[in-house]
């Protein structure tokens, strides 16, 4: 246990102590993209959803795709942190904080999209007044709210000892030291505090796993519960959850690479971490290829008339380029890159490809099913407008902005967990796997 009095590695506290001009430039750029998105949304508020490319036949588009994508990304934290904690994978220690914070930011950004998509955001309270549990939207509402609350708690709990360290060892202004004092809750690192903290974290790790699985399952059920071709599929729950973990791992790999470089964390985040997460990414990649094959082959082989039209839209129609691009460059190429996993850049390149492909995958689930005609015999049309693209860009910028700011206020590596891991590794007794390798 790293006592609050022991000096923490200055590298870890450096981002909280000093801020270079480059950071302010980054914040300014991200902030202006977000501001542009807010401006675009204000247009939409004034003139209604007619500002989007949506229409009566394709009534859900980029907004709902973003919703599914970001809620998917949010599974990074749960997997890395909770599952690895429960299975005592020791190498997780330096990356848990990064993962857990992705979860919180991604839920916030993702949950905004159904609201942005609403025709009457002024009536949002009707969900509370007249909410019907029969509707999958209510399932999502409840599940995501629970997940957000749980993730916040799960991010906060392991941060308490670090906050005590920060409070003592970083000279800050009044406001920030007040924040650390309040959040630190008088942590002194005594045995009784340590015991109850370990217990709470252990409990949260177990609780948060089924909650996370429920989240992307009910997101998939929004689609799965309708009778629409391409949506009405029993594989959707597991398919969405696997995709969520897949894109979540890719996102944390990208975050690791950036933080490692910018904050000089080479000592803590090593090639081994990339290789281990890369192996997990490979496993999820193969699962995604398997699920994708199952989903489309079942439809194609049976070739019901509606399924055939839907597959034409995807495989040779307006979305063919995107579909085959996703399969080739987003699923197969990363798998090849991840087999050897020789360098960090190789692994991060795969991660970037995966994230791009997973955004496409979400889009290809939402839109082509609506483009497939139900009553007529010509394809429905949809091309997203500048408002939709602006708000999408703002979401990505906002996500990065939240993350960058977070790393300036809180240590991005869990200092006490890392030093505790080092202590345990020094003791010969409990068999620890993964720290060497």
């Amino acid at each position, binding site marked *: 246990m790293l006592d609050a009095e022991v000096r923490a590695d200055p590298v870890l506290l450096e981002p909280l102590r000093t801020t270079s001009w480059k950071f302010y430039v980054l914040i300014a750029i991200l902030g202006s993209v977000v501001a542009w998105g807010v401006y675009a949304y204000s247009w939409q508020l004034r003139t209604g959803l007619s500002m989007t490319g949506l229409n009566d036949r394709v009534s859900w588009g980029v907004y709902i795709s973003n919703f599914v994508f970001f809620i998917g990304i949010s599974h990074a934290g749960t997997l890395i942190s909770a599952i690895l904690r429960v299975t005592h994978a020791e190498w997780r220690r330096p990356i848990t904080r990064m993962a857990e914070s992705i979860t919180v930011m991604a839920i916030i950004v993702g949950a905004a999209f159904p609201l942005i998509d609403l*025709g009457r955001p002024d009536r949002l309270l009707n969900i509370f007044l*007249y909410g019907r549990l029969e509707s999958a939207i209510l399932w999502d509402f409840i599940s995501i709210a629970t997940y957000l609350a749980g993730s916040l708690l799960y991010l906060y709990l392991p941060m308490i000892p670090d906050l005590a360290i920060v409070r003592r060892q970083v000279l800050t202004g009044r406001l920030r030291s007040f924040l650390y004092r309040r959040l630190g809750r008088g942590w002194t690192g005594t045995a009784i505090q340590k015991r109850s903290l370990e217990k709470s974290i252990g409990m949260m790790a177990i609780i948060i796993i089924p909650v996370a699985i429920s989240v992307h399952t009910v997101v998939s059920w929004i689609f799965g519960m309708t009778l629409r071709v391409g949506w009405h599929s029993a594989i959707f729950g597991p398919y969405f959850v696997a995709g969520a973990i897949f894109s979540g791992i890719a996102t944390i790999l990208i975050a690791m690479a950036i933080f490692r470089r910018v904050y000089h964390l080479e000592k803590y985040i090593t090639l081994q971490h990339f290789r281990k997460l890369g192996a997990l990414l490979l496993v999820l990649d193969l699962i995604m290829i398997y699920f994708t094959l199952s989903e489309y082959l079942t439809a194609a082989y049976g070739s019901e008339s509606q399924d055939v039209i839907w597959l034409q839209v995807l495989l040779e129609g307006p979305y063919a380029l995107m579909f085959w691009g996703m399969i080739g460059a987003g699923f197969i190429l990363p798998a090849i890159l991840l087999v050897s996993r020789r360098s960090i850049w190789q692994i991060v390149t795969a991660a970037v490809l995966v994230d791009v492909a997973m955004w496409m995958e979400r889009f290809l689930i939402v839109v082509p099913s609506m483009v497939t005609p139900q009553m007529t015999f010509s394809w429905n049309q949809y091309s997203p407008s500048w408002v939709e693209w602006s708000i999408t860009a703002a979401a990505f910028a906002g996500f990065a902005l939240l993350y960058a700011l977070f790393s300036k206020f809180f240590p991005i590596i869990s200092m006490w967990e890392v030093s505790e891991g080092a202590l345990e590794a020094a003791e010969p007794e409990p068999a620890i796997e993964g720290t060497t390798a």
Partner: protein
Amino acid sequence: MTDVDSDLEVSYDRTRRRFLRVLTSLVGVAGATTLFSGKILEVVGFHDVPSSDLRLASPAKHDWIMVIDLAKCDGCGKCTEACNEEHFVPPGMEYIKVYSVEDEFGHRYFMPRPCMHCDNAPCLKVCPVGATFRRDDGVILIDHGRCIGCRYCMAACPYDARSFNWAEPPHTEAELAHEYSPEAPWPHRIGTVEKCMFCAHETAKGELPACVTGCPMKAIYFGDRREDAISNGEEILRLAETLRREHGFRLKEEMGTEPRVWYLPARRD
């Protein structure tokens, strides 16, 4: 246990009590807010939902049904016109869509499609706020004061029967003068979903829907399943017998949505 630890135990205990007190009062405030939220919202003007009498169960006097004879339909679109005029349907929107269809033998015919008012309605199931509801007489209506515009019902409807007010619909004086009700839902409202309501305001007066009276070919019949009678304004037919003799069918029967709109085939002996 050290002194520090036991001190902490004491302070934990105090903290816990304070925490419980705060928690209890928070729960109290939340409970009171929930109880009176309807009232509060009414006061601040959020509550533009019509009285719920309309939804209350009452002994249904009718069991509405529609039959469209495709052999008579010539695709003139007069039903849509009559409907648009009757309901001040915003431009670009159609409650009844007339599709041009070609069968497997190359024969062309027309198929008007109103809302099917399904007995097992996919749109009804998915609505998160109960804005879409079914009346005792089987008619499915939308409460435009409650709809939040999530468009889940549009995604769920297998018949493409629903449309959305993407922008503020252009209003006319006559439309604005009318008092809104879900049976006669105008003035139309931005950000809400619309569809055919089986002319609930007309049938309440004992009149036929606008599309039935507006059809020059007399192809659309409307009636009461309970009375086993349908009428196109000119003749009255027995429902069950007509459907049996003329091989009546419903769209996407295999989906199990149980539509209330029947079709008589375009070509039959």
